[in-house]
């Protein structure tokens, strides 16, 4: 009897890693939270930029806070842009005209008209490479537009299991719109402790297998905490920050809660960075999320971010899970925490269906 060893047959599994992918080829990557999509997007941008003669590589993402994070992570000067801003610049540059928007909503681009117009103008792709992060949250027409008129090669990172809007784009739609091959799956979760990952995974449903958690346990189970009022929340967060340090993300459902809490935290944490991101203020450039401190965000702006500790406030507004969109949002928000996760509610008790929507006490400790 002579059998090959497991090591020998497993070594056949060696497949091209995302970081080894040729710079002149398009690439489609999917991965769960913490699998390093954003970092890989930046590394890919740097690599392609070094290769491309024109150095014309652009990183496009979903929101301004993530665009800011990409800027902070990038060391090579690759341009990062929100989808909205990138398309506006591209369209006005090639057509010398304003971007057409929907009559019903001037913030939404009229992709049909744009694509039709560029088709007639015989505009062709000129950019060496466009790299898209959080692709699932961008409109499918953006991918059609990009593939036809913008970039010679495309790299897309996405995870539709984390899509936060009702009108997200599925992986099939991205593939269909771009002609990309089936995506490579990233397997490892490098961000969360096993305890945090278990809570996030409770809310996971969808296409991707649960990631292998590569970190070791730190022995702290996420907690469900009832609070009396906003002052109580401020005490909790500030005490935690003062005694544990690190970066703290506070996710709010209602912006007014975020504004009130931000002020109270600033009062209690003098000498500590305490920021709030507000879409209306477009103040992302004044926030350095890579520095320790407290950042208050809402569920849209927290996408793609990560913190040592995350407090998710007002969970009574998020559970019981009403639909897949809410489930994906909970999955995405819980997985922002590297080490510590708190789900906060109060002052009223959770309803029975809300309490039942949460993981059991062995996974989410009740305080």
């Amino acid at each position, binding site marked *: 009897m002579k*059998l090959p060893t497991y090591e020998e*047959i497993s070594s056949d599994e060696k497949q091209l890693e995302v970081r080894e992918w040729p710079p002149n080829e398009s690439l489609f990557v999917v991965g769960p939270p913490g699998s390093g999509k954003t970092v890989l997007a930046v590394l890919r941008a740097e690599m392609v930029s070094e290769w491309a003669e024109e150095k014309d590589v652009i990183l496009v993402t979903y929101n301004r806070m993530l665009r800011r994070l990409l800027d902070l992570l990038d060391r090579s000067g690759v341009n990062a842009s929100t989808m909205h801003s990138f398309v506006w610049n591209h369209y006005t540059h090639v057509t010398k005209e304003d971007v057409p928007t929907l009559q019903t909503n001037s913030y939404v681009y009229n992709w049909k008209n744009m694509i039709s117009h560029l088709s007639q103008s015989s505009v062709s792709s000129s950019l060496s490479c466009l790299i898209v992060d959080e692709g699932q949250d961008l409109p499918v027409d953006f991918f059609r537009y990009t593939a036809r008129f913008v970039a010679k090669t495309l790299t897309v990172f996405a995870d539709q299991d984390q899509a936060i809007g009702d009108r997200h784009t599925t992986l099939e739609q991205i593939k269909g719109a771009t002609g990309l091959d089936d995506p490579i799956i990233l397997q490892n979760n490098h961000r969360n402790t096993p305890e945090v990952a278990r809570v996030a995974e409770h809310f996971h449903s969808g296409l991707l297998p649960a990631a292998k958690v590569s970190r070791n346990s730190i022995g702290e189970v996420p907690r469900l905490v009832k609070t009396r009022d906003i002052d109580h929340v401020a005490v909790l967060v500030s005490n935690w920050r003062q005694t544990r340090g690190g970066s703290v993300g506070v996710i709010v459902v209602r912006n007014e809660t975020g504004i009130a809490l931000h002020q109270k935290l600033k009062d209690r944490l003098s000498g500590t960075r305490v920021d709030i991101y507000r879409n209306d203020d477009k103040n992302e450039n004044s926030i350095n999320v890579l520095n320790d401190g407290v950042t208050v965000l809402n569920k849209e702006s927290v996408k793609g971010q990560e913190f040592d500790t995350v407090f998710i406030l007002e969970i009574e507004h998020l559970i019981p899970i009403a639909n897949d969109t809410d489930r994906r949002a909970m999955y995405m928000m819980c997985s922002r925490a590297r080490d510590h996760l708190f789900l906060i509610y109060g002052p009223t008790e959770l309803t029975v269906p809300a309490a039942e929507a949460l993981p059991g006490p062995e996974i989410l400790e009740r305080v």
Partner: protein
Amino acid sequence: MTTQLPRWLVSLRSSVVVEPVRNDPRTVEHTVFGIDLKTAQRKVLANGQANFDKSWNGLSPHDRALVYAYLNQLGHLEELVEAFRQLFKDQEPPNETILIDIGCGPCTGGLAFTSVYSNTARFDYIGVDRSQTMRELGELMAATATQMNEVNRQWIADITSAKWNSAPGWRPIIVVVSYLLASPTLIPGQLVTQLETLLRKIGNGPVTVLYTNSNQPIANLKFPEFNDSLNKIGFKLYADDEGEIVVSRRDGSTKRNFRYALFHRPLKRILKLDN
């Protein structure tokens, strides 16, 4: 080199199988429970195809399962122990391995797999056997083996009954198909389809299939269909041969010939999208 079972496994077999048979008042020289060995193989075991949940001529279902373990399990164990030793050489199996033992009999694949761990084995075991009596004897052996204290065990009558509530992940899977394809009622394509349904539930991890059987051609007539079915779902054949191991018996060393094959499918890194 002689293939030897680890001492704990010899003791286990002795206490759960060999001594209960030999110490039974019905057992006299050259018989098991008073039945001569030829009749035992042909009638009690029906060459491994018997319905072990039915009594036979005064033998209870448990007696029949014991006869099977007494006469057939040792050789099957030796083959699998040797196969696993070669497969893992001086290393332990990967963490969080899941072992699916199809046609498990009295936990034969599970016990052989446990033998490659230097200390307490840690894996998930799914034992599949249509005979409840055989599954019960398997659980008795597993529960008696302290080396299997940390093994999560599930016993089912067919693959479609497997309960897998964890989210799909990346855990490595070993499938043992030992002396199963000789069954006249088994349809290899159907078996592989059912197996693939379970594999998908478990996730995208690498899967290794170890096949052993008698080297009699008639016992392997279904192998080509089995091979084709696995090939269609992405498995590659790494070994397919007849081989022998040297085993020790009361009257000295002897050669044991058998058929074996090894298939492997790497983890699924590409997400197949319908488009």
